[in-house]
């Protein structure tokens, strides 16, 4: 849901198929409403099929929170049929910080979806990435190994991991599969053109991000919306520019959300329950200068 407004604001006609119908998100500790029955999700998708050709109507299909294994199955059946021109983005929402927030049986459902469907971009967080690649990541060499395993398993050309902590520093990581060798400006090495090292056709880059002393709800959804838009705009190719732009915008939104919350409560805040994407919508119009990028050798 936090995905719809930023996409619309960036010019997308969004056909939103709801997978839950709650009063608020679980971060409040109390909740009303319920999960949308997977059959009902299936019904709505079938209804769409009655008026448009869902396999090629859309420029992009984004899959987010699916609360039940059967919901993932419904999404998989739809996505498996998508025509090659459709960009499929999958945010495999499973959990965070070592904890699943879905049933365990949903993990293999996601694996199947990611194997069988033509996914162009996926945006797991570290916990989700570790679950799906079956590798623990605590160093750059772990990451490289895990990314290779992930790639071998799923063959997804573009991967973004929203945040990874390595030696006390937070990073956002991008990985892209290259069919031929590419020339890159190694900004960490002061702009000499160099042939990038090519191993298994996989290039991995990263940006350090500043860790904010605060927990957020919904930051993943907003980032997915912003990354997906930048990704599509760039011809469905993840580049350092794409990820940098998205990260800078998100960072603005997070920092200002803390400010707004602090002003409202008059206290130091450690948990922002609702990031202020509507109040901060102008950030989406920004045209930020790119951050220096680093490559995993």
């Amino acid at each position, binding site marked *: 849901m936090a995905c719809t*407004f930023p996409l*619309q*604001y960036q*010019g*997308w*006609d969004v*056909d*939103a*198929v*709801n997978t839950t*119908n*709650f*009063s*608020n998100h679980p971060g*409040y500790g*109390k*909740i*009303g*409403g*319920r999960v*949308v029955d997977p059959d*009902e999700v299936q*019904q*709505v*998708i*079938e*209804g*769409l099929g*009655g*008026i*448009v050709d869902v396999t090629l109507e859309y420029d992009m299909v984004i899959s987010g929170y699916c609360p039940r294994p059967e919901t993932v199955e419904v999404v998989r059946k739809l996505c498996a049929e998508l025509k090659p021109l459709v960009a499929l983005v999958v945010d495999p929402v499973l959990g965070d910080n070592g904890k699943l927030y879905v049933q365990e049986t949903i993990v293999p459902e996601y694996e199947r979806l990611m194997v069988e469907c033509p996914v162009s971009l996926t945006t797991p967080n570290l916990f989700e990435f570790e679950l799906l690649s079956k590798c623990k990541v605590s160093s750059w060499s772990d990451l490289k190994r895990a990314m290779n395993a992930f790639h071998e398993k799923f063959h997804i050309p573009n991967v973004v991991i929203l945040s990874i902590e390595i030696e006390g520093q937070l990073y956002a990581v991008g990985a892209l599969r290259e069919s031929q060798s590419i020339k890159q400006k190694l900004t960490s090495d002061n702009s000499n053109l160099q042939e990038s090292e090519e191993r298994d056709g996989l290039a991995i880059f990263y940006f350090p991000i500043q860790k904010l002393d605060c927990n957020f709800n919904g930051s993943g959804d907003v980032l997915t919306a912003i990354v997906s838009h930048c990704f599509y705009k760039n011809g469905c190719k993840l580049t350092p520019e794409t990820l940098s732009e998205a990260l800078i915008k998100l960072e603005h939104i997070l920092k200002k959300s803390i400010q*707004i919350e602090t002003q409202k409560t008059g206290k130091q805040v450690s948990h922002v329950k609702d990031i*202020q994407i*509507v*109040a901060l*919508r102008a950030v989406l119009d920004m045209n930020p200068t790119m951050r220096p990028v680093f490559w995993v050798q």
Partner: protein
Amino acid sequence: MKSVLSIQSHVAHGYVGGKAAVFPLQTQGWEVDNVNTVNFSNHTGYGTYKGSAISSADLSSIFHGLDSIQMQYDAVLSGYIPNAELIDEVSRYVKRVKTQKPNTIYLFDPVMGDQGFLYVSESCVARYRQLLNERIIDIITPNQFELELLCGFKINSNDDLRSAVRMLHDEYHIKYVVISSLEGDADHIRCAVSAYNDAHINEFQIPIIKSYFTGVGDLFSALLLDKFYTYVENEDANIHTLTAAVNTALTITQKVLILTHELGVKAFKKAEGYNIDQPVGIINDAATMKYFELKVIQAKDYYSIKDGTFKSYSVHT
């Protein structure tokens, strides 16, 4: 930040109900809490659709959820509610919201039908009359058919119009009444505006665009809420502020419709490879209908328009 609770229908594809109302409000800085009364694939004008209405138990659970996190709103907007049980739930919750915060503005759009055709269950009419008795509504925006259903008589003259409007003010204590569309001449829709503390009814004449639009009423009431809230912030609400807010909402609505028609005709030509004489959306024809969905996203820059360009007239009876 201003906050609004919007209680509307949801469609995955197309722009009616919440899909027509929420985005324009968000672009104007409203934090929108969205509660869906139905969850459909598309609006019923396509002839086929799938999905279902929310159960009253689920709606009640959502409202209790909002209660338990002590939500307060600057405004409440309600639109399509398909049956009487759901109207009860909405009525109960809005009453609680207004008890929490008495100056919450409730804009109630009694969506029931249009041009003699009812698109909610029959039992809604009586239940809506009960809701009117709760004295929680600040602004009401029926079209002519809905006004006739609520008041129980036909509007054939300006005298009838005045009686109906007075009934809403005096019997139901609704301060602000906007009749979103009244039969006019062949080329115009009339829109009437009245405030409880003023004897005048103001009217606008809107040139009809010959096309098939859906969701226009939902867009219009959302825009009206935004403009009304913005205009009354600085002054007391009276017939002039209300008329000015309606004018701006009508002006924006007209621009959205012109854009929708233009883009619809263009897309139709491009996709179908030919130009039909008058490519208006045809009801129950999915193939045509889809080109004339309101261009709510493409019209993003219109929603901030500050002044209306229509002229209002005082109605003589």
